[in-house]
């Protein structure tokens, strides 16, 4: 165990120290930023063609420097502090942190929703009595996100720092992203008549912009969550599996699933037992995008169909047999 914690610590120490310098600063700055953004989006709504809308389509940047988080479910103690911190960071009302000690919530499986962007579930081990696995669930920040490909207006985008974020100024609330996401993550505010939002983990985009850690990573008391460049995290995960083959199943979930995700998981039991979805390695949007682009390849198919029909029409018009009625 000690060796393991060393690795974890080493892994963290090796990361660029992006944390800290902004930690003590007051929330005011962020508030102002949020306010600015909000007024911008109102402007966008009014003019319809603001800077936000001018860039057509999602950006879908895939930087090799992008960050991720390695969730080690064998370290997680199920304290659910991350749930509380996440709500705090996203202005979602929450009960005081003391109430999170209540372990009865683990009785039923929970999913992230519009009131909780991340939840922790606990699963009893199937073979070893008394052993259980706590699994934090949130958006996986896919490298090739289905939600980004699907969104009708490009309200979802993959950012350079790895986060998949949602833009309230564009979203029309069609919920196609929810249909598309292979991890069933985006949630919708069904009980709002005005400006219902798509709610999902945004990898603490605003916090990270000023150098802070994601709120859940920051609060985790046992360092079950490791924040860092995704490429490094894959290395750390692999070395942990190699060094402690008894502790882990030999699988880094997210390394290859649906084309790779920026959040990665290690576990001490088969991922299927922990209710991870069974997914292939092809990016989720692959098939639909190639069909879509096949139908529209440079507009050749529609234009040729148009021409063909025009010719047909011309022929039948000049065909004496069918012409009699005209």
């Amino acid at each position, binding site marked *: 165990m000690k060796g393991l914690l060393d690795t974890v610590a080493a892994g963290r120490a090796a990361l660029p120290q992006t944390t800290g310098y902004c930690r003590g600063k007051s929330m005011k700055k962020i508030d102002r930023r949020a306010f600015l953004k909000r007024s911008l989006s109102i402007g966008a709504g009014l003019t*319809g*063609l603001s800077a936000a*809308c001018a860039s*057509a*389509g*999602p950006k879908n940047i895939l930087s090799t420097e992008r960050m991720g988080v390695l969730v080690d479910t064998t370290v997680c103690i199920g304290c659910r502090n991350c749930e509380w911190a996440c709500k705090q960071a996203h202005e979602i009302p929450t009960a005081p942190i003391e109430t999170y000690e209540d372990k009865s919530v683990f009785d039923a*499986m929970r*999913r992230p*929703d519009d009131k909780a962007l991340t939840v922790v579930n606990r699963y009893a081990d199937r073979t070893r009595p008394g052993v259980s696995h706590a699994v934090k669930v949130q958006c996986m920040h896919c490298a090739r996100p*289905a939600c980004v*490909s*699907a*969104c*009708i*207006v*490009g*309200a979802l985008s993959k950012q350079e720092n790895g986060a998949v974020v949602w833009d309230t100024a*564009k*979203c*029309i*609330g*069609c*919920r*196609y992203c929810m*249909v*598309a996401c*292979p991890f*069933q993550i985006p*949630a*919708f505010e*069904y*009980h*709002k*008549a005005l*400006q*219902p939002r798509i709610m999902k983990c945004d990898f603490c985009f605003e916090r990270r912009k000023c150098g802070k850690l994601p709120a859940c990573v920051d609060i985790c008391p046992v360092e079950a969550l490791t924040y860092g460049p995704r490429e490094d995290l894959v290395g750390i995960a692999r070395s942990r599996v190699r060094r402690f083959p008894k502790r882990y199943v030999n699988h880094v979930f997210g390394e290859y699933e649906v084309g790779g995700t920026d959040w990665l998981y290690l576990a001490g039991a088969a991922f299927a037992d922990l*209710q991870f979805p*069974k997914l292939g390695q092809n990016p*989720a*949007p692959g098939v*639909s995008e190639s*069909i*879509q*682009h096949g*139908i*529209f390849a440079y507009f050749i198919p*529609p234009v040729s*169909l*148009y021409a063909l*029909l*025009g010719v*047909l*029409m011309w022929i*039948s018009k000049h*065909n004496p047999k*069918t*012409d*009699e*009625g*005209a």
Partner: protein
Amino acid sequence: MQALMRPTPMRVKFVTPGVVVLILLALNGLVFLAGRFLFGIGAVTNLDNQYPWGLWIGLDVAAGVALAAGGFTTAALAHILRREEYNVVVRPALLTAMLGYTFVAFGVMIDIGRSYYIWHPIVMWNGNSALFEVGICVVIYVTVLYIEFLPVVTERFIGQMRLWGALAWLNQPVDRLLRSLDRGLSKTLFVFVIAGVVLSTLHQSSLGTLMIIAGPKMHPLWQTPILPLLFLLSAISVGFPMVIVESLLAARSFGLKPEMAVLSRLGWMTTPLLGVYLAFKIGDMFVRKTFVHLAELDLQSVMFVVEVLAGVVLPLRMLLMRRVLKSPALLFTAAMLVVAGVALNRFNNFVVAYTPPYSFGRYVPSFGEISVTVGFICMLALLYRAAVMIFPVISRPDRSLAPKDKFTVRG
């Protein structure tokens, strides 16, 4: 025969007992619609974070688009292939498509959380999104449908402008406007007719692409990369049956003699279309070996079997029989089965087949959702009735009531 038939506005009383029922059902739908706009989608529907799409997308939108396919199939038949004898069904089919798509737009409008942003896709593009493609095509196609319908409007009002009172001065200029519109349209309408067919094939198939991205969340009986093709083929094969159903309903409702000669030929032409669709549907099942799921005997397998047997195989068999083609009642039954089968297929694809890994109980449409859908269908029927009473849509034998107007244009 062509010379004897002529589109005329129906002259009947608008309100009948049936119409009163339709109005009541429409009002009931409006009540729940008000609830949706006042308290949010969650207040009226059973949708949740596990099942984001339900009855409104599955029926109002997806089935609505499919059943409006009569518009482009008859337009292709009568205008592109120039089979003039089918002109009598073009206008009713066009009107259905126009009203149908209008209600599809309403359906989208009420289902999206931010209805007031419905114009966003027009300026914010995401070419990767199948939904974006469907949205844009539908917007353009609705416009094209309205343009295609314009000749019917000009035919009705040229030389017939009878505004009175303070508006009487408008009669002259409006008449002149209509006449120039009419002249322009008779030369250019073919552009729109072809565009309508192209746009229809595009978005009918893209509607099938929609669910592909859901991947394993969609039941394997329906999830296939050839979904766009299946959607297109089924849309093409439901076009004529929809026209048959409509014509027979209208004939009964307005006390006309059904156009059996035309309708039974339409029924006959449906068989190869339906056959091709069936071949692809069954072929796909064997290629992907999904028939193993049929043995599971759950909701999905039962719905699949019902969809294929009652919605495709049975009507196909019926339409191959001479007796069915000759009898209005049997033809109606067969056509209705095709229509219901395709509607069920769309509902299955978008709702029944959607089986997400995490779920807290299956989605079942709420009373409110059903009310709104029923209300929309009733409103559509009412508008159809009103439209055929105002505009020359339905053809009836010309008993030399009036000499042929010299501005008559085929729409």
